[in-house]
């Protein structure tokens, strides 16, 4: 290779490909006659024709239709009740509250919505609040939080992330928890009463623990310096989010559910994917196997109406739902599966016809018989 400066060498392979061109010594050898180098590796060569894809269509059809039916039935077996209590219509019991409310009101407004269940809810019932037209997925909103503050980092507690702006500091004090997400925490209180046939109202016990993901509650969200210390002292030197009425260490009386590890806060902080969403609020546990969790009858939903939605034309709902292995009630998947399965089956038949009409030719066109 001593001729490096000739045009030849330079042109040849030095400036070009270092790899395949190889060295002069290697090139002078005869190439190896291996299957790989000669591109003769054994290979599966799929040619898609009516004949070859036909079984796949039938198989998909045969698989999807039963799955679809299963999903559909499951979805149908889920009991779900939604109550819209936004109160935009004058007839609504919460009309008053919805009209007058703004974030910085000190007096709370209460309203109650009666409803009845035609069928009992047998298993555990999950109580959700639902918001519509609430863009929790807005790019800047999603970012407006400080995870390390929520994870109990003292430094971040006093000096929250820049991402929280403009909900980072208030009156010179750091906001805990900072950011727009925390600031807009859903703060309606919902209570459920069963109206006994005899007229008495029985409050239905709602579990407020266990609604957040285990990992969130135990790993991701932590109060600063241990959970058992005095929260008030820890949060000294911080201030509450602007829209909140109480500071974060007074969210609950239960120390296990207070501060950053308050489950309502945790659930809220997991921002929803779509502008219409629901978030788990409480769980109604089934007591004993004899009676349904929620028997048939009349109920009253008592609301302490705090959360304003008029500014963005949002709606608020309370949702009661049992759940199955596939989550909440959603007939879409079942129908989609059945439809796709049927289409596939149908197309399979079409392909079968095509195969009969043309397939023999396509195999024989170039072949002697």
């Amino acid at each position: 290779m001593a001729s490096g400066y000739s045009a030849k060498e330079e042109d040849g392979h030095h400036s070009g490909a270092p790899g395949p061109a190889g060295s002069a010594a290697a090139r002078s050898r005869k190439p190896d006659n291996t299957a790989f180098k000669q591109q003769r590796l054994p290979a599966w060569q799929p040619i898609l024709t009516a004949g070859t894809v036909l079984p796949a269509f039938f198989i998909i059809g045969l698989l999807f239709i039963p799955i679809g039916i299963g999903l559909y039935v499951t979805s149908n077996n889920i009991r779900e009740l939604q109550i819209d209590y936004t109160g935009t219509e004058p007839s609504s019991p919460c009309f008053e509250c919805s009209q007058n409310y703004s974030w910085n009101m000190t007096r709370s407004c209460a309203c109650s919505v009666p409803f009845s269940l035609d069928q009992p809810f047998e298993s555990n019932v999950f109580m959700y609040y639902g918001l519509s037209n609430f863009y929790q997925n807005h790019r800047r909103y999603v970012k407006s939080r400080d995870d390390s503050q929520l994870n109990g980092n003292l430094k971040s507690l006093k000096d929250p992330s820049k991402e929280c702006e403009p909900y980072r500091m208030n009156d010179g004090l750091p906001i805990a928890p900072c950011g727009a997400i925390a600031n807009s925490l859903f703060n309606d209180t919902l209570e459920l009463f069963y109206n006994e046939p005899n007229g008495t109202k029985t409050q239905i016990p709602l579990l407020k623990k266990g609604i957040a993901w285990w990992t969130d509650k135990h790993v991701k969200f932590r109060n600063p310096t241990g959970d058992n210390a005095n929260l008030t002292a820890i949060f000294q030197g911080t201030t509450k989010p602007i829209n909140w009425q109480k500071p974060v260490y007074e969210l609950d009386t239960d120390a296990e559910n207070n501060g950053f590890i308050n489950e309502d806060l945790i659930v809220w902080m997991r921002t929803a994917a779509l502008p219409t969403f629901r978030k788990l609020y409480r769980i109604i546990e089934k007591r004993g196997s004899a009676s349904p969790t929620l028997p048939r009858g009349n109920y009253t939903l008592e609301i302490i109406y705090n959360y304003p939605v008029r500014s963005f034309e949002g709606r608020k709902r309370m949702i009661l739902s049992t759940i199955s292995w596939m989550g909440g009630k959603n007939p879409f998947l079942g129908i989609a599966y059945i439809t796709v399965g049927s289409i596939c089956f149908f197309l399979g038949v079409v392909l079968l016809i095509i195969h009969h009409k043309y397939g023999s030719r396509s195999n024989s066109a170039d072949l002697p018989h």
Partner: protein
Amino acid sequence: MESLRSIQHRCQQLLPEMGRGWSSSSAAPLAKSISGNQDSPAHKFSGKRRTVIARYGPYKDEYCTITKGYQGNRIRTTKYTLISFIPMNLFEQFHRAANLYFLFLVLLNWVPVVEAFQKEITMIPLVVVLSVIAFKDAMEDYNRYCFDKMINNKVTKVYSGKQQRYVEQQWKDICVGDFVLLSCNEMIPADMVLLHSSNPDGVCRIETSNLDGETNLKQKQVVKGVAWQGFEVSPEAFQRRIECESPNNDLNCFRGFLEHPNRTRVGLHNENLLLRSCTIRNTDSVVGIVVYAGHETKAMKNNSGPRYKRSKLERRVNVDVLWSLAMLLFMCFSAAIGHGMWLSDLKNAPFLIPDGTSPSLAGFYLFWTMIIVLQVLIPISLYVSIEIVKLGQIYFIQNDVDFYDERSTLGMQCRALNITEDLGQIQYVFSDKTGTLTENKMVFRRCSIAGVEYPHEDNGEPDSGVSDCSSTHFSTSRREVHVILITNNQEEIWYCSHQEKDVIPDPQLLLKLNQLSSAEPLLQDGAGDEPQEIPYIVDFFLAMTLCNTVVVSLPGLSQYPMSEFPQMAMKPLENMKLLFQRLSATRSISSRSESKVAAYSPSNFTQKLFSRAKESVPLSDMSQVETEEAEGLQVTAPKPELSEKGAQALATPQAGPCRLDAESEALVYAAESPDEAALVHAARAYQCTLWARNSDQVLVELPGLGRLAVHLLHVLPFDSFRKRMSVVVRHPLTGQVVVYTKGADSVIMDLTAPLTEGSKAAAKLKYIKEQTQRHLDEYGREGLRTLCVATKVMEETEYSMWLKNHMYAETSIENQEEKLLESANKLETNLTLLGATGIVDRLQEDVPETIEALQGAGMHVWVLTGDKQETAVNIACSCRLLRSSDKLLTINCESKEACEALLLQLSRIVAEAKDNDVGGPSGHTLIIDGRSLELALQGNLEKAFLDLAQHCRAVICCRSTPLQKSQVVQLVRDRLGVMTLAIGDGANDVSMIQVADVGVGISGQEGMQAVMSSDFAISRFKHLHKLLLVHGHWCYTRLANMTLYFFYKNVAYVNLLFWYQFYCGFSGSTMTNYWVLIFFNLLFTSAPPLLYGILDRDVSADILQHLPVLYQAGQLSQAYLPSTFWYTMLDALYQSLICFFVPYFAYSGSDISVFSFGTPINTSALFIILLHQVIQSHTLTRMHGMVLVGSALFYFVFILIFSATCTTCNSPANPLAVDIRHMKDPLFYCVTALTTALALLPRVLCISIKNSIHPTDLVKAAQLDKLDPEKRQRGIQRWRSTLTHGKSLATVTVADGDPRED
């Protein structure tokens, strides 16, 4: 012996003012200024010229000022240094638009208001791409660095001023003005003017294979007048001054002069210059003075970068990248508008962050944010991927064992790295004939002397000795030249010329020639017809042996000892001489040489013949030179200081013919062209042996006359413009100055002397001319290459007149070429035709099959040759370019008007034939000669010519010059807008190869120039078959499919993000973890397309080779049409809609969080994209399987690890537990399965229905592939037979609809 030198000096003495006149008139001011002020440094002229004086010579003080601006011999070919690598490399890389776009995105992300991702994340793609390319560049540069170092540290002997002797020095320390001493087989470190050679005749031979790949030896000549006899040259006393051109890159041109202390000048030419990186051969030692060093040497100046061509597909890709850009802008723009409108409807929503920007401004910001978010739409990794894929494709092409030629031990060589796919789209093939279609192994086949034909019937039969091409001669291929240089291996590299050597003499001619040895009876017979022929025959053979530039060498000996002059048998020689003198009068009517001949009285002549003369003439000894010059012919007897070997050879001069034969058998001829070698070998078969050659003399042996030293006065080398070469010699027998010319018959015939009517001799000449022409035509019809041989006797005065002129031309710096041409034209007139030769050049193996296949693939094959029409047509017939049924359209016209009329007429014929087309296989073939071609290529006829030519099945351009070849290619390429391929093997094909879209060089007999300028180098023409039909097809299909897949992949994925904008207020939010988003393209889905691009194989090589018609898919760009692109985009759109909206409806209204929502979408997208490739792939090997499964696994492992460990590391995505929960959720699997199935459904359906109802040829071929070999063979045959019946395939398949009913 009568050398240029002596004449020059005589002239200098006689005409002192002439000396200066030698430099051209424009150089006169320079000469004046130098002579006016001898001591002033000449660096004033360094702008255009350079002055060189010896470094340790008498003008040491001046040396520094003169050489200040000259570069040293250290070279640096690296682009970067250690320090400058990063900034320089980045700078280079940012010249690429794609990288700039990337950089722009990164910078954009630093603007807070538009920031979409974390800043670091956006940088990842850029960093990855930059570092991959930087790594590649660094490796290349490092190789260059090592290489430079090796070269710079090479050691050679340089004169040292301190030690007063030659000492070893490294190359890098050599300066201009240094004296360098080189021994045999050493490499030349810098461009030097040759001052001394150990060869007594002042000649040295160099091998230039490093420079131009030519392995024959080139002769270099010591500067005239600087002859140092002893080895002990003294650089310190070197008072001469060299003026030469400024460094330039013209390898074949060097102009300047050397000025002696007494202000006389000697012209410097290319043959005085030793070029860097060539190797000294056959010479024990040489000394030169360095004139150009380092980067200023011609070799380095020729060191251009790699070829960069943009392939057709790439141009198409660029258009579609622009479309992608348009789509991106559209999407960003609509998102911006949407965001503005969405914002304007909202007041004080709790999810809005108040910052006082107006909706329209926010929309503007969002536009830029979206550009960052949707950046992947511009497939930047595509460019990197295409490069990688092409490297892979080249790897496979180069490793194809079918391209390996056992004989030359050469494989395939890809020299251009980025146009592999163009091989699959060729529409026009332009082929050289000689050496490309034919072997370029010339065998002397027939000859005609003085109008008599000697058919040589036993000769030139094929396969006579082809097989035993001995490995000793062929073992060192050109590829190993580098190796040789390192090891200084002394093996000779010559053509395999067994076949050339095996000439069986024609008995009749042999008989006549043998009469030479017994010329007496002839002489006594008087003037019969027979003896008149003898001088013709002798001259003919002399011309064959003399009129060439063949270098002779004996193995083991650098060359045949020139000083050894054989004793000659007195009698025959004298007889011959008399015979010649008697007969020459009749021959040279046109020349006025009779008187001159008479001047040489026989006795005087014979006496001189054996007079002793000095071998080389000392510079000082002017008077002697003059006298000897006046005496003319000198034949020297052996000198006492003969070499051992020479003496031995001399011991029994004529006694042992066997021994001589053996010795002559051992002679090795290195010729510039195979024709020359063939002629010399043929002459040897008649015992007219060329024994040795140097610049002054040629040692030849004539039958019965022994060895004669013929004084070579001048050589006018061959050039393609003149189409001939000439030598001027002293005739060994008559002592006259004789010109021998050989060249193309058309040229020589025109140069023969005009005939004067009446005389008997003139009638004889006329007869000869007519007969020869008849024979030439016959040779042409047989497909032989013809050459004419002619001679002329010159008067002394005439010669010296001409010589003066020629000297002037040779020493002028400006317009040298034109002057030399003029001078040559003056010499080569009034020739006497001696005869003609016919040389056969056999077709290479499988050429007809290859041409047939190329035509079957829809390619127009044009043959562009310098040969005559008959030869070209004949070869075209034998290689089946022409079929018996074809109609020949011949254009031979003299004037433009005639040409135009003819073109129109022929066009009409073709058009009519086309109208009446009955689908027969016959076609039209256009044959056009060089002159007509020149007319046709002129402006307004181009169109008519092309119209005609493109409807012809084949076009043969004969008698075309290299320039015309390239003009034709360029015309077709530019005017018809088609993909062109040019293939050739010789220097005359270089321009055509460079002009064509794809240039293919055949590493054949005529050096490496064609290979050097080509994109692909093959060793046989037949390899074109597989290269185009198989590799070309594969490369194109693979790359086209991969590119489309890339576009599809990006659009399909990016649209998912776009659809989400409709549900997040067009806020530029993404539902995907940013890391996954970036890695999706970069890691999870990048490897499979690469493998797809390198390994996919739609139809097997076997079928592609047997069914050339399949190639048309590539020609029509069927794999990648604009419509294909838009169908792909449409499919991508559909898939993205499915992939987004199935999960959307499945999760709508639920409590799913942003980044949880992304997981089923991403996972489905991954499956869709990977399975899409499975659908598109034609072959799936285990490697495919591994890569596909690996990609999917990589994705899952990545997201699972990420979601298991990342607590707060990736705010705000917070992947903790997200994906793990999904994996536990059956709903996730239901959604993914449904999405994947539904997204791929239409494509599968469409492809399978199309393949069933209306399969393309490729699909049918792929189906053939699946059959067992026997059935496949029958299928192929059946298909081919339907094609040859002239029906289109479509009609065939319909007709075959129900084969069983037939």
